């Protein structure tokens, strides 16, 4: 895949260039502390983005991830505040929240054949409401800020040496998912479902199962990210993660996974996540107004998508032209051969008649 490789090389080059400019403008950028924080922020988005990439490969979209983060954080806080269940038991349980949401999304998408986009948008609204309803309230009924004190839970926000645990989990998850996508039958089925659902169904692939799978995985990843985010912040609010879907979409799109489905891998998403985190960090480090962040993210998405489409058309144009040329020269050769044949054939005919 030379086009994808070239695109990735350009992206890595840009990544390094922006890093160089930033470290030139602000020396504190290159400090280990800042780099690790950057990686940690990138990993929080990246874990969600990995799940989102799978959804995008099936040509779907999941708008509910932000709300899943909020609900999972609220579920964890409820366990912490109202039950004596230890953290290592309730964390797997709260990871199920995301899977359940994925099941819900998958059911409406496959069973009622509704557009993925609108189903997940509706479940986003529902989940945002649920997050507020189940939030821990004080006696006046106002949402109270819970400070997480459980040491096991907080250890998820900790570090191993200088590296945050979330970064390690992100890298491991990226490797596993990439392996799953490229080396297992279920992974291949996901690509087939995205590339051409009708053809996939006709060749015996259970496309519904793939769709259920990717939405559940996407929800699971969002729940996983929620635990790391709340452990890092040492608190949880019902507005957690709402709106973060834009960052995730931006990361995946920058990474080069198209919306048409059937194409994409995790490495692109990893690079895209780093790229976005770098830009956000840069805006902060250069002291630019934080309100510029959404403008930059929205602008980047539009520009990258436009560039991708233009580049694809450009590459296809080149391929078409070269194919045409090959065909022309092939035709010329064929014409010569045909003439020779005709001469030979004519001779043959003449002999026969």
């Amino acid at each position, binding site marked *: 895949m030379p086009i994808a490789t070239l695109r990735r090389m350009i992206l890595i080059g840009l990544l390094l260039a922006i890093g160089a400019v930033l470290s030139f403008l602000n020396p504190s950028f290159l400090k280990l502390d800042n780099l690790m924080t950057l990686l940690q922020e990138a990993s929080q988005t990246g874990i969600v983005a990995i799940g989102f990439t799978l959804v995008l490969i099936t040509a779907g*979209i999941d708008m509910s991830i932000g709300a899943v983060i909020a609900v999972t954080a609220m579920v964890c806080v409820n366990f912490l505040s109202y039950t004596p269940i230890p953290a290592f038991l309730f964390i797997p349980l709260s990871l199920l929240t995301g899977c359940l949401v994925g099941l819900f999304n998958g059911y*409406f998408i496959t*069973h*009622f*054949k*509704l*557009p993925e*986009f*609108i*189903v997940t*948008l*509706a*479940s*986003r*609204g*529902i*989940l*945002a*409401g*649920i*997050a*507020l*309803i189940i939030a821990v309230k004080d006696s006046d*009924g106002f949402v109270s800020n819970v400070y997480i004190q459980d040491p096991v839970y907080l250890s998820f926000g900790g570090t191993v040496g200088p590296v945050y645990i979330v970064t390690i989990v992100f890298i491991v998850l990226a490797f596993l998912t990439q392996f799953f996508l490229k080396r297992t039958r279920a992974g291949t089925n996901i690509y087939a479902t995205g590339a051409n659902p009708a053809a996939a169904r006709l060749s015996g692939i259970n496309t519904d199962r793939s769709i259920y799978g990717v939405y559940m995985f996407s929800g699971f990843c969002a729940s996983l990210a929620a635990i790391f985010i709340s452990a890092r912040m040492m608190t949880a609010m*019902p507005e957690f993660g709402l709106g973060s879907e*834009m960052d995730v*979409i931006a990361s995946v*799109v920058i990474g080069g996974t198209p*919306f048409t489905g059937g194409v994409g891998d995790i490495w692109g998403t990893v690079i895209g996540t780093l790229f976005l985190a770098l830009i956000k960090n840069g805006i902060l480090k250069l002291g630019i*107004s934080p*309100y*510029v*962040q*959404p*403008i*930059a*993210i*929205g*602008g980047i*998405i*539009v520009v990258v*998508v*436009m560039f991708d*489409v*233009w580049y694809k058309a450009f590459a296809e144009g080149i391929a078409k032209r070269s194919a045409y040329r090959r065909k022309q020269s092939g035709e010329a050769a064929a014409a010569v051969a045909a003439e020779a044949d005709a001469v030979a054939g004519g001779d043959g005919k003449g002999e026969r008649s």
Partner: protein
Amino acid sequence: MSDTKTVGGGGTKLLLARFRLFFILILLMAVLSVVSPRFLSLENLSNVLWSVCIIGIMCSGFIYSPITGGIDLSVGSMVALAGIIANVLMNIVHMPMLPALLLTLVFGLLVGLVNGVVTTKFRVPPFIVTMAAKTYLFGIAMFVSNGDTITIMGPKDFLSIGVGKFLGLPIPIYIMVVMIIASHILLKHTVFGRRAIAVGANEVSAKLSGVNPDSTRILAYVISSGTATVAGIVMASLTQQAYAPNAAGYEFDVITAVVIGGTSLLGGSGSVAGALIGAVMVGFINNGLNLMNMPASFHPLVTGIVILIALILNQGFTLPAWMKPKKRAAGGQA
């Protein structure tokens, strides 16, 4: 043909089917007035009317993006940004009111143009383009207003758009009615409306019959953004303030209204009158939740559920086989 000739029950059924939305609306009103006696008071109903006006104005243009098979998620941010820009032009640049509002409108139309061009010419899914637009418009709104709530002291004429009355009725109602009627005529009785429906129903056949799908879609997004700008101006003068996150969730309300009204999100069909009834219902539902002292958290929850139910009901034609056994059997016998 035989359907129209049936007597008695058939006619009633047809009436029920055609005006089912209206009946559901009356049912909703009845339920709400039982649940909360305050619901039917004049004061409360006029409160509902304000919010219905904003959503109705937005719907009148927004409806064209789903009809052509797309969606415009940037309308909420556009509403907020329009108020902020109008305020900047009138109170900081000190332009006269009319040119300032026209300039705001031009900005809105330009945003729609960008959305449309990027969607059609670059073949990018519309919800991505408009989601990105929603994000950067919100960013611009925050940047321009510096994240503050701006109180619009504004020219008197501007404030009277929102609170003024004409023949005893508030002016926003006239604006909404005019825009809804104009939108209805545009959809049902003009070439553009026909083209929009054709493009949404089947792009290939529309193209083959000489319709340019790209320009039709671009115009749909321009109209959608334009009406959102008008709604933003009305809202700014109504509330006398401009604040970037003010209209953040409005796109969901508008989508809900349009979907309740029977517009297919897959494109190719839509009804402006239905969208208006949908807008009234959304207004009633939100108001009812407030009256029942439900916390604000129920709002997105209920909206999400209503969207899903309305979609499933609308999507009758793609329902799975087990849900329409009678039609299957009838077709088989014929």
